C-alpha cells in the first residue's frame, strides 16, 4: 500500500520497531517477588526491586532460558559472553534511579523475522524478512497512578502521583528491529509475528491491552531512491496491532506533508491518540548518551555454553514460519487458511492431530475455522484445547463425510452435540441411524412419493419454473430425515421430474 500516492515526489517510510515483551516467569528478574499481575498495589515488593541500599540482585534462571529461546526463535546469534548494564535516569517509577538492562553485549544479535503479508483482494500473500538488530533482557519499571484521575489529567488539578511497584523488576525482553519496515501493514504484521513466536514458545502471553507486549515505533520518511534517512520520530502508546498500523500511516502522511510544505520535522517522541486518531508531540528526545550506561557491578556476566544452547534449541517447538511454509507447500492450504490456523499454537496442534487421525487437510481446516471457530467465539473465546470434541473425533466425522457414510448436512446437525458432549461420531451415527442413504432405489421411492404429493409444484415446474427442482430435493431430504445422499437425490429428482 502506498500512502504517498497523490504527491509528485515519491516518498518512502523507513520504520524500525522496539518491542518489549513481558516474560511469563513466576518471579521477577532479579528477586523472589511474584511477577504476576496483581490488582492490589505494592504487594509484590521486596528490598531488591525497591532498590534498598546494600541488596544484591540475582538473575532468574528462567529469564535467561526464555530470552535465549526467544533469541533462537528470532534467528539471533546467541552471545557467548553477555552482561548487564545500568541505564540511569530519574523517574519515580524507577526506584533505583537506574534500570538494569543490557547495553553493548546483549544476549542475542543479528536475527531476522519473516513476515507474511496477506492481500485480502487477491487472496495471495508475499513474504519479507525483517532484520532483528538485537534482543536483550531488562527489568520493567513500576506504575504511576496520577492523583485525582487518569493520565489525561496531567495539566489540571493534582500536585502528586501515587506509585505502585508491583511491576518494577518484572522481566522483559526488548527486541529491536532493523529499519527494514516500509509500511504500517508491515509493522503490524511484524509485531504480530513477534507475539506469535513468544506465544508458541510459551515464554510470554503477548497481550497488548494489558501491556505485556509494547511497541515503540521509530519512523522517518525520505524521497524514494535516496539513501540518507530523514529525521527520526518515535511514536508510543499504541495498544493494538491496528493502532500501530494507523499511527504509522498517520505519521507517514504528516511527515510527507511537512516535507512538501518545507516545514521542519523535529526529533521527538509523539504519542498516538486513539480518540483523535493522530500522533501528538510529547517531548523533544534527549541524546542517548545522557543515560550514562555502565556495567552493572552487582551481576556477573552470562556465558551460555554451546551444550546449553543445544539443549534449549532441542526444546523449541516448530515455529509459525515453518508451519506456514509447510501448510502451503505440503498440505496445499491457501494463504488465508494457513494464516488463520497458524495464528495460534493450540489451533495448529489441534489441526495437526486431526490430520494425524486420518482426515485430509482442507476439510479439517474448514471445520476448525468455520463451525468450531464460531463455537469457541460464542463461548467467550474458549480455547480449542478445552474442546469436548477431540481431534480424533473430528477426524472421524470428516472421514464419515469423505467416504459417503453421512452427508455434510448430517455432520453439521451432529456437530452441536459433539461440541457439547464429545463422543464418537461413528457411534452416534450408528445409534441414531443417520447413515446416508445411497441406495438409488430407496431414494427413487421417496422421490416418486414427493412428486405424487405435490401436484401444484409439479405443474409449476412443468410450466418452466425450473427453480422448483430445489423444492423437490428439499422435500426428499426432509422425507429421509436428511439422510439421502444429496447429490444422488438431486440427480434422481431431476430425472423423475422430466419423466413425470
Amino acid at each position, binding site marked *: 500500500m502506498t500512502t504517498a500516492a497523490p504527491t509528485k515526489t515519491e516518498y518512502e517510510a523507513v520504520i524500525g520497531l522496539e518491542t518489549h515483551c513481558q516474560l511469563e516467569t513466576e518471579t521477577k528478574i532479579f528477586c523472589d517477588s*511474584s511477577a504476576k499481575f496483581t490488582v492490589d498495589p*505494592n504487594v509484590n515488593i*521486596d528490598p531488591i526491586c525497591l532498590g534498598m541500599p546494600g541488596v544484591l540482585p540475582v538473575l532468574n*534462571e528462567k529469564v535467561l532460558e526464555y530470552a535465549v529461546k526467544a533469541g533462537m526463535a528470532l534467528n539471533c546469534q546467541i552471545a557467548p559472553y553477555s552482561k548487564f548494564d545500568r541505564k540511569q535516569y530519574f523517574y519515580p*517509577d524507577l526506584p533505583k534511579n537506574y534500570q538494569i538492562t543490557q547495553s553493548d553485549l546483549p544476549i542475542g544479535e543479528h536475527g531476522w523475522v519473516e513476515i507474511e503479508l496477506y492481500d485480502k483482494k487477491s487472496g495471495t500473500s508475499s513474504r519479507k524478512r525483517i532484520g532483528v538488530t538485537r534482543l536483550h533482557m531488562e527489568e520493567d519499571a513500576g506504575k504511576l497512578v496520577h492523583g485525582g484521575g487518569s493520565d489525561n489529567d496531567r495539566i489540571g488539578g493534582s500536585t502528586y502521583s*501515587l506509585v505502585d511497584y508491583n511491576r518494577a523488576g518484572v522481566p522483559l525482553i526488548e527486541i529491536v528491529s532493523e529499519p527494514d519496515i516500509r509500511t504500517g501493514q508491515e509493522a503490524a504484521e511484524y509485531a504480530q509475528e513477534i507475539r506469535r513466536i513468544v506465544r508458541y514458545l510459551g515464554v510470554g502471553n503477548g497481550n497488548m491491552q494489558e501491556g505485556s507486549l509494547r511497541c515503540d515505533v521509530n519512523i522517518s520518511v525520505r524521497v524514494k531512491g535516496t539513501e540518507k534517512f530523514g529525521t527520526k520520530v518515535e511514536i508510543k502508546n499504541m495498544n493494538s496491532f491496528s493502532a500501530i498500523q494507523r499511527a504509522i500511516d498517520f505519521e507517514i502522511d504528516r511527515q510527507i506533508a511537512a516535507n512538501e510544505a518545507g516545514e521542519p520535522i523535529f526529533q521527538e517522541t509523539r504519542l498516538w491518540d486513539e480518540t483523535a486518531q493522530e500522533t501528538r508531540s510529547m517531548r523533544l528526545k534527549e541524546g542517548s548518551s545522557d543515560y550514562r550506561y555502565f556495567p552493572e557491578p552487582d551481576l*556477573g556476566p552470562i556465558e551460555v555454553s554451546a551444550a546449553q544452547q543445544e539443549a534449549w534449541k532441542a526444546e523449541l517447538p516448530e515455529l509459525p514460519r515453518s508451519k506456514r511454509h509447510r501448510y502451503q507447500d505440503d498440505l496445499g492450504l491457501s494463504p488465508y487458511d494457513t494464516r488463520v490456523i497458524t495464528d495460534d499454537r493450540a489451533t495448529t496442534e489441534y489441526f495437526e492431530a486431526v490430520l494425524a487421525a486420518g482426515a485430509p487437510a482442507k476439510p479439517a481446516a474448514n471445520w476448525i475455522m468455520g463451525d468450531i471457530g464460531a463455537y469457541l467465539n460464542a463461548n467467550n473465546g474458549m480455547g480449542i484445547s478445552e474442546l469436548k470434541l477431540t481431534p480424533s473425533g473430528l477426524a472421524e466425522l470428516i472421514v464419515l463425510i469423505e467416504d459417503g457414510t453421512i452427508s455434510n448436512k448430517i455432520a453439521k446437525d451432529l456437530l452441536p452435540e459433539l461440541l457439547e458432549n464429545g463422543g464418537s461420531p461413528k457411534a452416534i451415527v450408528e445409534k441414531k441411524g443417520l447413515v446416508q442413504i445411497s441406495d438409488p432405489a430407496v431414494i427413487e421411492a421417496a422421490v416418486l412419493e414427493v412428486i405424487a404429493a405435490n401436484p401444484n409444484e409439479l405443474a409449476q415446474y412443468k410450466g418452466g419454473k425450473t427453480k422448483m427442482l430445489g423444492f423437490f430435493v428439499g422435500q426428499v431430504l426432509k422425507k429421509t430425515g436428511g439422510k439421502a445422499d444429496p447429490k444422488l437425490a438431486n440427480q434422481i429428482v431431476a430425472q423423475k421430474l422430466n419423466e413425470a
Partner: protein
Amino acid sequence: MLNSEQVHKVALLARLQLTETEESQFAQQLSGILDYVELLNELDVDGVAPTTRAIDVSNVVRADRVKLWEGREDLLDCAPDRDGEFYRVPKIGSSEG
C-alpha cells in the same frame, strides 16, 4: 581538563545542586581524578580482551520460585511519603524516562 560546564551537566543529570564556586572546585578535583586514571593508558593492552568485571564469576542464577517478602508494611513505611498502599511522590512532568 574538565570544565565547569561539563561539571554542571553531570550535576544536572545526577540531580545535584551546585553553586558556581562548587562547580569550578569540582572541575578541578574531578580533573585530578581523571588524570590519575589516565595513567592506565600508559599500559600496552594490545591483544588483551576487554574486561567488564574484576571478579571472575559467571552464570550466577537462582531458581524461579516465589518467596513472599514478609515486611511489606516496613517497606511502605520507610518512604518519605506514604499514602495507604501507595508511595506518594510529587507530580512529575514528562521530561524524562
